[in-house]
């Protein structure tokens, strides 16, 4: 699955300030941050293992557990809640057969809930990977999901 090996990735991020960018690329390539990479990253950047682990577990776009090929983030903050985001979550649960925090068995989707993604004027909203979907209705969900492999 991975099109870039760890040494290749390490070679393109040589400085301390690149740690977050490096972790984000690993996340993208591998779908998560494999624990066994952490000591190697630390050695390569000359940082304590705890520091790399600390950064790797801090941000919501990084994950220590294997994620699906496509990560769905449904907004649950107040403006989306007022526009029935719960109905969207229910629809996704039914379509995918998983709940928030879970990944489908075929590894196609992970489902997560998130806070405001800055699309409240077009609520309810969700993201799949880098794409934002707005003005959602339960009817729109199957077609949107169909676009992802």
């Amino acid at each position, binding site marked *: 699955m991975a099109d870039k090996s760890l040494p290749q990735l390490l070679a393109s991020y040589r400085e*301390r*300030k*690149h*740690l*977050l*960018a490096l*972790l*984000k690329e690993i996340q993208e390539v591998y779908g998560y941050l494999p624990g066994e990479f952490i000591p190697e990253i630390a050695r390569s950047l000359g940082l304590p293992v705890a*520091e790399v682990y*600390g*950064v790797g577990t*801090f*941000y*919501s*776009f*990084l994950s220590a557990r294997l994620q699906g090929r496509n990560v769905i983030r449904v907004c649950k*903050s*107040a*403006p989306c*809640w*007022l526009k029935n985001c719960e109905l969207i979550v229910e629809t996704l649960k039914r379509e995918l057969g998983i709940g928030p925090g879970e990944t489908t068995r075929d590894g196609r989707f992970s489902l997560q809930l*998130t*806070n*405001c*993604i*800055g*699309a*409240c*004027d*077009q*609520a309810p909203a969700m*993201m799949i990977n*880098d*794409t*934002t979907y707005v003005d959602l209705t339960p009817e729109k969900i199957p077609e949107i999901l169909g676009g992802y492999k």
Partner: protein
Amino acid sequence: MPEKRIVLKNCGVIDPRDINTYLGQDGFKALAKARTELTPEQVIAEIKGSGLRGRGGAGFPAGLKWELARNAPGTEKYVICNADEGEVGTFKDRYILGRDPFSLIEAMAIAGYAIGSQTGYIYLRAEYYYLLNLLQNAIAQAQEGGFLKGLVIEICEGAGFYVCGEETALMDSIEGRRGEVRFRPPFPPTQGLWGKPTIINNVETLINIPQIILNGAEWFNHIGTERSKGTKVFSISGDVERPGVYELVMGSPLRELVEELALARDVKLVQVGGAAGRVLPYQEIDTPLAFETVLGAGAVIVFNESRDVIDIVFRTMEFFAEECCGKCTPCRLGTEAMIEILAKFVQGSGSKEDLTVLEDTARMMQLTSLCGLGQTAPNAVVDTLQYFPDLYQARISKSEVP
């Protein structure tokens, strides 16, 4: 008071992918004026004289911040644009960035000239990845046009964390660390990114800059209220017919925005400033919107009569507990304690003692939290206890009531 376009002047007018359309609207004239007619000190004097205050929530005077950074010793200095926009209910920076990236770049170039900086960063929240290409394209066009002389602007992408919008956490995040809030002092204008003098401003704050330089401090100073100059861009959402982005002169009544522009009906309460903001019941709908009263970053969330107040407060606190960076104890434990108690009120099993604990915890968090997150997290609790005490009383467990 009328709608007025200063910040949104180019939105929908120019093509954000074509610098020539921006040049057609006086684009980069302010930068040329700054560089040829004004010394860096004079630029800063204009910004100070305009009375422009930060639009990211805290309202700090922009000119003063710039002056501190200009006067700080050192040759390596940084300009950061805060495009993290994580406050619940805020989307105005997204709106502006997507429609007028050039004004932002021009403003950053003026800022770089004023404080003596060769490097600028735009910290873009991960959720706005779709704007990355547009911004990069705008920077490249400005560079090719010869407008950036000596200034490099880099875009740094976030990785999803509300607290990274806080200025010191944001700097730690650019440095590749956990986005945790720093102890202050030192303040960023003297020791910011990489320990060097740094100014950090919100997108909207910066977009005002070219207009101020072109039209002069006096012009700007005459718009707005005594302590809030210019306009404010609001993001309004929730129970309204026409959600969206509206720019109003500072001091405009909340009613104008909520009822006349966004067409809300049966309003029960309004949260001004997002989750961290103040809760106003409908009887306060004539409150003017300004730093003197309520403003924050201009997120306005409207709740109608059908909504449950305690539910709203509970959800607000849940947000803070999730987004707390964990560095300071008052915030980390305070938000958790409040959720526990609020959950009881949601279920109707609160007690009188719980009310006292809520009030005490709120005060403790406001006074002792390390950053604005913990300090403002109790706002919704404090305000609803003040305006809707009966609703809390009604959720005290029946066995408790004498």
